[in-house]
């Protein structure tokens, strides 16, 4: 092979290697679920509404059997994600349709509603400030944002219910708890992580694998923006 041909070959090989690296980064490692932005209405500054649902099985994507959240976007469409942004210095009204059955917390402490306005939430219209996960339908999930000091225990629905939602996305005709609460987004711009404390990663040791450790299922970010 001539020197020129060898040089060409080497250059092609380098280009291919760089292409492969870029594909790995942008085609795979940098992918992330969609982000839903909550924007205040003109009439109500400093308040935004966020509507979410949490399903026992998201029903779509690479892990359809995993539990996970759906968040309503601006056009009313639910997106399967756990990423949303809220403005700074704002009260965030969360309307959460909870379709999953509940169970016992590993640490019953997380049955306490903390950091929401009034340190309470409303479940189907009734005010609740502490959920005993060992009684009734237990706790289905937590919406816990450590950075904002928020912990919301979401009471579960009866898993034996006739219209129990097996596969997401669920709709309000199926058994659910409508949970409403408000939290304050704080004065600083920051990307706050949030998680769940119910061992809902079925089939994983301690229930804390799989969806519990995956963005887009039971782990996410509330980004507080300007």
């Amino acid at each position, binding site marked *: 092979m001539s020197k020129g041909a060898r040089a060409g070959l080497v250059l092609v090989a380098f280009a291919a290697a760089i292409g492969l690296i870029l594909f790995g980064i942008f085609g795979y490692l940098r992918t992330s679920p969609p982000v839903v932005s909550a924007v205040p209405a003109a009439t109500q500054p400093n308040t935004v509404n966020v509507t979410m649902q949490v399903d026992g099985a998201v029903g779509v994507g690479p892990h359809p059997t995993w*539990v996970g959240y759906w968040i309503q976007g601006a056009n009313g469409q639910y997106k399967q994600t756990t990423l949303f942004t809220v403005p700074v210095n704002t009260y965030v009204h969360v309307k959460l349709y909870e379709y999953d059955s509940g169970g*016992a917390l590993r640490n*019953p402490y997380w049955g306490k509603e903390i950091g929401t306005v009034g340190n309470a939430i409303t479940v189907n219209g009734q005010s609740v400030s*502490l959920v005993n996960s060992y009684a009734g339908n237990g706790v289905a999930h937590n919406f816990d944002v450590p950075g904002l000091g928020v912990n919301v225990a979401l009471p579960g629905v009866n898993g034996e219910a006739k219209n129990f939602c097996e596969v997401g996305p669920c709709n309000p005709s199926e058994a659910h708890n409508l949970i409403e609460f408000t939290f304050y987004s704080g004065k600083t711009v920051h990307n706050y992580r949030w*998680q769940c404390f119910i061992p809902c990663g*079925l089939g994983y040791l301690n229930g804390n694998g799989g969806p*519990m450790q995956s963005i887009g299922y039971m782990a996410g970010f509330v980004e507080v923006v300007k």
Partner: protein
Amino acid sequence: MALKTEDSGSPAAIARKHGSRIVAIWFILSLITDLVVWFVWGPHMPPGTMTTSAAGQQFDFKVLTVMSVPVLYMVWVYGAYVIVKFRDRGDHEDGYYMKGNRKTQALWYAVTAVLVLTLAGFGTYELVIPAGAGVGEGPSPIWKPADTTHMLQVQVIAQQWRFTYRWPQFGGMETTSLVLPVNTEIQFNVTSLDVIHDFWAYQLGVKADANPEVNNVAYTKTQQTGRFVVRCDELCGIWHGAMYNYGKVVSQSAFYQWATSMETQNAPLTKLLPKYSSVYVPNDNVAGGQYFNG
């Protein structure tokens, strides 16, 4: 082989000539640096002196640094001297033929052995006397503080991915915040509900792995008020990097005020908690925890 004229003489004389220069430079640099390390830098070294164990760690770090400086300089000064002095002068000659030197080797073995044994002895003393130096000593600690009567018991419960704290002397309440009284012996009982975490209260100089079903005890004594950070220091999954919170060391009266008010405030919650115990074994066969098929 052919030596340059200035290097003629017996090997011992040459060694003395170069050696004395190296030793002189080394000694002066080491001395100056060590004084700076001890008096200027030392008092500001992390992690500060908020507790006895933090102060102990600072002291140890300072001592080790003072001992390391001469070792660093020995290699650097020697290396620089050799690179300048003993380089190939373009004639492609070989070096001085020598396969060893019994005296030098014996001296080296002796010095390193003495240094290492001293350090091991020093480390052991610094570990045993300050009640384990703030490190987790497992369920049955062997090095304890002298006075255990007024000790504050704090249970650290690590779970994926937050720390909570239980206070057996305050009705077994559980909190997410960590507030400590100043000038108090504290016993941390560190445990986990799931995987291995590590309770690292940086300014307190306390570090103990949180193992599931194991009580890992660490002691310290607070001596200054202030804020400190608690971080998880053992990889525990997705939120390991975000598993931290802040705590405060406050005056004793402020602490009691905080603790008693928390106790009343949390009373309904405390009733739901399992009885206080050194370890907790959550049932894996309920809720979503099932892992076993059998």
